[in-house]
């Protein structure tokens, strides 16, 4: 790869200065032929961003999550994009997948492999398809740029993103690889993805946020701001895997909005391993009757990492189903946050919802906040939720030691086992295997 020289070094700054710096960015917008709607939306988003600034720590959605490490840096927009070659990203590839690669938010056609896309499956650069009526009909309609300043920043500044349109069945998994490169100074990277699943369509999508350790000088400080919008029409089925394995000094703020139609099935498995501070908001709404959702998440953090997962499940139609399992494992002085809100709206009778938040503290300095919330405006529903925060089970630890395992190895085995339940839900064996190995490696290995 060719590193890009930047003249400005990052300097310590205030929250306001940090935000101002982000607003100085300019999207290239060279490839835009939207006929005007996107320019209008960008201008609107910018206006909202300016009005909102960064979220206040007093805000209910942000009160557990300390963003102050983010504010120390001035993030510069990327004006020239790095060029990578296939060997640079080889370790992230998923065999047999349709591959769409973005480098620092810019589409890298030479690294992508779209030839597996079958009939009725469009996987493309959003910038190239911006004139498409389907794009205009959906883009920006679901992620709330008027309420969320990070979504607003993204909507104004994104250069390009993924456009995934599925009518029929995508026979190969779609791998959306978002690569962040190390640069001379801290940079802001905007990633975007729009998925439209037509009626009765099927696909599996892996959104994969990776940092590339290229030995740069700024210790991998960058700010990833990712927004994904997903629409599932009636009977559509999407298996959606999200992996966040950014560089350890980076910041990652992601927002995913999902609208689900009648009898659709949305399965999400989200794994957060990287970044100094990360936040993922998953906001799903069941619009049609009989929609089914399985939302699983795992955050595995150590050192001074902060990983925050916020989910909102809106049951807006009758006989919807949602099953959620979120796990967090925190070591060192890491801080995990889970907030899971389930709202059963008026009319959503027969809703069946189950949520479980299970958390493991590996050190006395680690911290986990978990906050399940139920808001039910209906009688005829079944909603269960539970949360546990615990340490490694001492009986299991003694049992393993009595079978010859050293204490460290026994702890690692039990921690790995705790994480494995979520990893096992990833429908792609090669990816699940790699993540499993990455987790084992992080823990010093057990086998």
């Amino acid at each position, binding site marked *: 790869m060719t590193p890009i020289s930047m003249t400005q070094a990052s300097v310590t700054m205030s929250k306001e200065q940090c935000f101002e710096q982000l607003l100085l960015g300019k999207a290239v917008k060279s490839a835009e032929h939207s006929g005007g709607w996107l320019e209008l939306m960008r201008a609107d988003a910018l206006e909202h961003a300016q009005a909102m600034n960064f979220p206040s720590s007093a805000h209910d959605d942000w009160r557990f999550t300390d963003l102050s490490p983010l504010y120390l840096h001035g993030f510069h927009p990327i004006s020239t994009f790095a060029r990578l070659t296939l060997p640079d990203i080889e370790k992230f590839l998923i065999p047999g997948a349709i591959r769409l690669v973005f480098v620092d938010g810019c589409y890298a056609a030479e690294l992508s492999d779209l030839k597996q896309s079958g009939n009725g499956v469009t996987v493309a650069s959003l910038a190239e398809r911006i004139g498409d009526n389907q794009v205009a009909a959906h883009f920006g309609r679901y992620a709330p740029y008027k309420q969320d300043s990070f979504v607003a920043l993204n909507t104004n500044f994104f250069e390009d993103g993924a456009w995934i349109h599925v009518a029929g069945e995508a026979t190969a998994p779609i791998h959306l690889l978002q690569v962040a490169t190390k640069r001379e100074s801290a940079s802001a990277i905007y990633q975007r993805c729009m998925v439209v699943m037509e009626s009765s369509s099927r696909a599996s999508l892996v959104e994969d946020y990776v940092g590339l350790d290229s030995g740069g000088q700024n210790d991998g400080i960058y700010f990833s701001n990712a927004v994904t919008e997903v629409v599932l029409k009636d009977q559509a089925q999407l298996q959606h895997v999200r992996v966040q394995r950014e560089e350890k000094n980076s910041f990652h703020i992601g927002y995913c909005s999902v609208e689900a139609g009648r009898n659709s099935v949305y399965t999400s498995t989200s794994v957060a391993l990287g970044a100094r501070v990360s936040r993922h908001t998953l906001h799903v709404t069941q619009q049609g009757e009989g929609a089914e959702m399985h939302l699983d998440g795992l955050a595995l953090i150590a050192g001074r990492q902060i990983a925050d997962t916020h989910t909102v499940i809106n049951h807006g139609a009758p006989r919807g189903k949602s099953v959620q399992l979120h796990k967090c494992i925190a070591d060192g002085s890491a801080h995990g946050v889970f907030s899971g809100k389930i709202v059963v709206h008026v009319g959503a009778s027969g809703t069946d919802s189950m949520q479980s938040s299970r958390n493991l503290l590996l050190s006395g300095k680690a911290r986990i906040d978990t906050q399940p919330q139920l808001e039910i405006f209906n009688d005829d529903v079944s909603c269960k939720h539970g949360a546990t925060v615990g340490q490694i089970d001492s*009986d299991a630890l003694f049992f393993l*030691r009595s079978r*010859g395992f050293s*204490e460290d190895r026994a702890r690692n085995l039990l921690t790995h086992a705790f994480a*494995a339940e979520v990893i096992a839900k990833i429908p792609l064996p090669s990816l699940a295997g790699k993540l499993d190995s990455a987790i084992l490696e992080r823990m010093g290995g057990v086998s």
Partner: protein
Amino acid sequence: MINKESKVLLEVSNLKAEVAGVEILKGVDLTVRAGEVHAIMGINGSGKSTFSKVLAGHPDYAVTGGTAMFEGKDLFSLDPEARARAGLFLAFQYPVEIPGVSNSALLRLAYNTLQTERGLDELDPIEFEDLILEKIKVVEMDSSFLGRSVNEGFSGGEKKRNEILQMAVLEPKLAILDETDSGLDIDALRIVANGVNSLLSSDNAVVMVTHYQRLLNYIVPDYVHVMDGGRIVRTGGKELALELEARGYDWLRAAA
């Protein structure tokens, strides 16, 4: 089988131990030689389960006096894992469930730890499969149990059989079976006992901790010890167990 010439595996002298500041063991003496089968009986609270946990090194129990030598090594200077690697095995009264760890992975990792300890090559998963498919016959276990998480969703009897399977794989010199018979129906009891019997040799030994005489019909002890109030108050042959079955424990307690 008693052979006074065979080597001493375990020598416990005047062992005292407490849990949460309460003294439970008040001076236990026990000698176990290779080839022997011992039964330790007693009422609930007599200290017999504590004794087995102390020997295995459970961290909740503090040794306050006495010694335990295992093949000449001071047991209490060893971590639980070092005791296991030295050849001590505890079959748990309440086997733990470990979701996310498959039975076969647990057995293979544990086996390989011992192989390394003995200076032998580790077995890869394929080589280990050949070994384990032989071992499961010992406890008449279906191979489908190998792929399942350790003890998760197992019945009480299946859990106890799984403990004996671990014993079969690890081939300890001294196995302590802590109430392995509790919660077993007659068929499971027979399977567990057959498994233990098939593993007995002149080089190893078994200490069964039990409340009831029933198990001893299947695994015939050379010595029966009665524990009461944290001490072994009487030692006899297998007929002592029958006497306890007939008369209960009270007569011994009165005598002690």
